[in-house]
């Protein structure tokens, strides 16, 4: 069953083409890694999928309202509000029927119950990111979009975060995440989408990308793949 489909998706900012003709689909419980060099258009693509940017061209098939959870690269939370207040606010804005229950659930799932009353500005970077992700999941979305979710986390925090995301995937949530960490893409994603200068260069499994370059190491395969295509 498909949770999300994109056909010929493009985005222009004036004369600059940030994303050009990207098509892919994401099934229920699937994990897709969007990889590419800096400026490839990963964040722009995720923003279009999240509803933050209007595509210039193309078609998107998205789940109904509240069906997409978005976790931006930089934590997007109110530092003067407590953990619980942030969750409650976004639960109400997402139109969650029982905001109190949703807040309780996310505090439990993120292990932040003990810090529920603390102002987010006083939390560590890892805990702030957990709040950031919890807000993305507050409406129990069918699709979770994450933009470089682990870039500011230490290895232990990364492992805990992926443990948490995998639990959601097992529950049927589809996940698309942008990352620079090729090992992370190989470890957690069932599919990868390679972007460079806004163009979609590859869509398939991580093993397929390695096979295309006759490389077992996905990072080396990725670099060689881009170099062959002038990136």
């Amino acid at each position: 069953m498909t949770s999300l489909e994109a056909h010929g998706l493009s985005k222009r900012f004036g004369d600059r083409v940030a994303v050009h003709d990207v098509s892919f689909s994401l099934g229920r419980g699937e994990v897709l890694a969007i990889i590419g060099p800096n400026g490839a258009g990963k964040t722009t693509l995720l923003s279009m999928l999240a509803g933050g940017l209007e595509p210039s061209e193309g078609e998107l098939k998205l789940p109904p309202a509240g069906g997409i959870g978005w976790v931006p690269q930089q934590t997007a939370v109110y530092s003067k509000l407590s953990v619980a207040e942030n969750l409650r606010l976004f639960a109400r804005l997402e139109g969650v029927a029982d905001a109190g229950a949703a807040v309780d659930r996310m505090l439990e799932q993120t292990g932040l119950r003990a810090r529920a009353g603390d102002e987010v500005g006083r939390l560590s970077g890892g805990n702030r990111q957990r709040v950031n992700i919890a807000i993305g999941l507050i409406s129990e979305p069918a699709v979770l979009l994450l933009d470089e979710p682990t870039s500011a986390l230490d290895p232990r925090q990364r492992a805990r975060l992926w443990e948490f995301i995998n639990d959601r995937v097992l529950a049927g949530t589809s996940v698309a995440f942008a990352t620079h960490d090729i090992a992370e893409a190989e470890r957690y994603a069932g599919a990868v989408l390679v972007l460079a200068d806004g163009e979609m260069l590859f869509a398939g499994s991580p093993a397929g990308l390695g096979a295309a370059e006759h490389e077992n190491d996905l990072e080396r395969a990725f670099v060689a793949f881009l170099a062959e295509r002038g990136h």
Partner: protein
Amino acid sequence: MALRALLGKDLRILRRSPALLALLIVYPVAIALLIGLALSSSPARPRVAFLNEIPPNQATIQLGSQQINTTRYEQELFQAIQPVPVGSMAEALADVRDGSTIAALIIPPQLPEELASAAQTAYVQVIYNGNAINQALVQTAIESKLAQANALLATQLSHVADSYIDLLLSGGELHFLGSTYDVLGLVRARTALAAIETALPRSSPLRQRIATVENFAQIAVSHLGGSKKVIAAVAAPIAVRQRVVSGSRTPLNDYAVAVAVAVSLMFVCILLASGMLALEREENTLARLRRGLVSAGLLLSEKGILAAILGVAVSFAMLCGIGLFVPLGWGRAALWLLAMAGGGLAFAALGVAIGAIVHEVRAASLLALLVSLPLVFLALVPSASVSAGLYDVIRVVSAVFPFKAALEALDAAINQSQPSLGIALAHLAALIVGFGALSRIALRP
């Protein structure tokens, strides 16, 4: 639902910013106290070193038949300044140099003599120190009192001139250097000449010459009589009859109240609206909200409404505080609130536009200050103080920003001045729409 959630969130954030909260409470109280005290107390008189070099026995001068005591004019002057008596010119200079007085006023010993002569201008000497504002303050005070003294002396001198003209016309006794002289006068001289002319034989050659002198006396009598009016007019060439062409004239103190309220409303609304919207960008929450959770219009309205509500609350509290010191028309309080609401929303719309353009709270606050302060100065520039072309430019700039219109609305609500509150509110409504549209454009991804 979303509006209430956002308002609640922003109020919580404000409540947890102790410095901002303290400012919102302390600001109206402090400004109200300062303005109230400034408007209700008498203006302070500048300290001026005063040296009177006129010997005490020469303080009274004789002008014609009238005696004038120069100490009377000293007392007039002391109403405008706080005199610090000094014994010499050197002492006066030292006081001015070391800043213990901001000016020195020296009355030279020859002043009574120069006044009594009525033939040359009498001078007093003023020495200034301090900055331009201090100098302007003391200069204005002294010059205004000297102008009053000059007017009084001119009247006295015209009376003296009148008595001399009367003596020339009608004759009488002239007291001069201890002696008394009998002055014939032109009228009596003409009568005497007429009598002599009649007594002379018709063929006498003297008759023609006497007739010429008699005609001269007749002309002199006619014209000297008219010159008294001319002298009276010279003593006070221009008098003021006041008339207001339209609307009611706002006394300066009442206008100052409207200005103070408008400035407070402006700062609170612009700074809060711009800061709260810029905070959404700084916390990266704007993109999260804008992905379908909250429309741009709702988000901008929420910031504007919150800033306007708080701005009106602060300004109203300030006006109530001022009302403890200055009489205000409390029966018009509903109109005050209406004017404040219009002004507050327009200022907030400008603030929101600034917040939409700028991405950081500090930059938004700085830009808000940089935009608002010149607007206040421009709105208060009097029409006659600059060229007509420049004033037209200032009027256009003032019209496209909310301060002037808000001030007019508040002045109309507080002091019943013109233009009417309705016109000012319509102007503010147009500005709200304009800045709202600008904000929406700036907020587009």
